[in-house]
């Protein structure tokens, strides 16, 4: 356990420079949202920019972590340590989650601060909308981690012939298989739906019944893909 903790601390420290850059970008997006929102009070979407930023920054951070360590040879150290390879990959994902949480807090905190100061339009967010948002972020991150791990696994294996088309075909086949599995799973689960209400600055009320199928699919697909990628990384990845 002490060893894994040491590994996690190292992961967080090793990529904090990249995290700092994305953190600064999130602050800039926040500033942009705050500065433009008063001119367009009806355009609630601008204050969601930090979230959009998060969607880009989380994968960039993770891909950066894998790529930079392969380029700078730290992968030799990580693979030679007496720790299972899946643990190395999982700890990297956890470190990325820690960094991503920082970006998320800044992004959402900035938006909340803007609303509170009256710099952006007032929005009544119902509990179900917040839940939907949280589920959306979770689904996105799960899917994303699965995909990045899958890509890294493929990159870590000296494929015979290294055929791009071969790898693409395998990915597509896997995607379709998992998609089928996810849909099958969805059909045996009770259908879920969430209602949410959104009132914009002009008082217009939007009501929507959210079908959670895409989110469920993303979570199931991401989890399956992630587990498969983690196993593949553990079994096949090499220097």
């Amino acid at each position, binding site marked *: 356990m002490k060893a894994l903790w040491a590994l996690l601390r190292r992961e967080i420290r090793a990529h904090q420079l990249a995290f700092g850059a994305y953190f600064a970008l999130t602050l800039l997006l926040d500033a942009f949202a705050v500065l433009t929102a008063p001119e367009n009070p009806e355009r609630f979407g601008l204050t969601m920019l930090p979230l959009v930023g998060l969607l880009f920054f989380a994968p960039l951070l993770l891909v950066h972590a894998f790529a930079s360590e392969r380029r700078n040879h730290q992968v*030799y150290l990580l693979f030679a*340590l*007496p720790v299972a390879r899946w643990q190395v990959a999982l700890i990297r994902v956890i470190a990325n989650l820690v960094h991503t949480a920082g970006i998320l807090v800044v992004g959402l905190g900035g938006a909340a601060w803007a609303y509170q100061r009256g710099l952006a339009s007032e929005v009544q967010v119902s509990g179900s909308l917040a839940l939907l948002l949280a589920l959306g972020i979770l689904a996105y991150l799960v899917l994303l981690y699965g995909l990045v791990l899958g890509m890294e696994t493929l990159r870590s294996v000296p494929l015979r012939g290294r055929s791009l088309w071969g790898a693409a075909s395998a990915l597509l086949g896997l995607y379709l298989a998992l998609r089928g599995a996810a849909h099958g799973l969805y059909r045996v689960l009770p259908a879920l739906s969430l209602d949410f209400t959104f009132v914009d600055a002009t008082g217009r009320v939007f009501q929507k019944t959210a079908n959670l199928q895409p989110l469920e699919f993303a979570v199931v697909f991401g989890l399956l893909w992630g587990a498969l990628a983690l196993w593949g990384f553990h079994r096949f990845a090499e220097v």
Partner: protein
Amino acid sequence: MTIVEVQDLWKRYPGSTALRGVSLQVPRGVVLGVLGENGSGKSTLLRILAGVSRPSRGTVRVLGRDPRDAAVRRHIAFLPEVTPYDPWMRVRGLLDFLQPFYPGWDSRKARILLEALQLDPDRRIGELSKGQQARLKLATAFAWPSDLVLLDEPLGGIDPPSRHRILHTLFSEFRYGEQAIVLSTHLVQEVEEFLETVVFLHHGEVTLQGSADDLRARTGKSLLELFEEVVA
């Protein structure tokens, strides 16, 4: 007791074959030299022994088990040819980082090793010269009682006058009694006196292997002369 056992080891990469049917054994307490020119497969062999690469065919056993098993790697000190450390870490920080991974890590001995190898514990690794980084790698390998030490081109970057002295100091003063050491290099002259058994690799194939003394007596040549013959 045999620490390393390799049988019919092949390693293929897309478009090339790095190892072709290599077989060897390393008993406990022996220093084995893997000698060969650049691209002969030395580093690939050591990476597979360290469990960071997979064989394409054949079997590799370290302490009777697959070195890709994390529990086995707890007994292996592996020094790759490249420097695998984070440049932002301080020398002392690296030793602190490695300590929880290896049972029996001796912090006192690590400090003494740093002194013997003239390394400042407060310097960042990125600020060290290539030779100092090579010394640091050696310090981390001998700071704990591993069963197997794998040194891939350990003298790269170290100035020629210091090479012999450093190896002599490490092997005579800091080596744990029965450690097996596998050392790959093309600097045969510098390591010749430390090697007890040797394996000559050429284009991924073992061309000559055996006890260093036997080979010298049988051929009437030094290891360096044999190496030059193999390369030629």
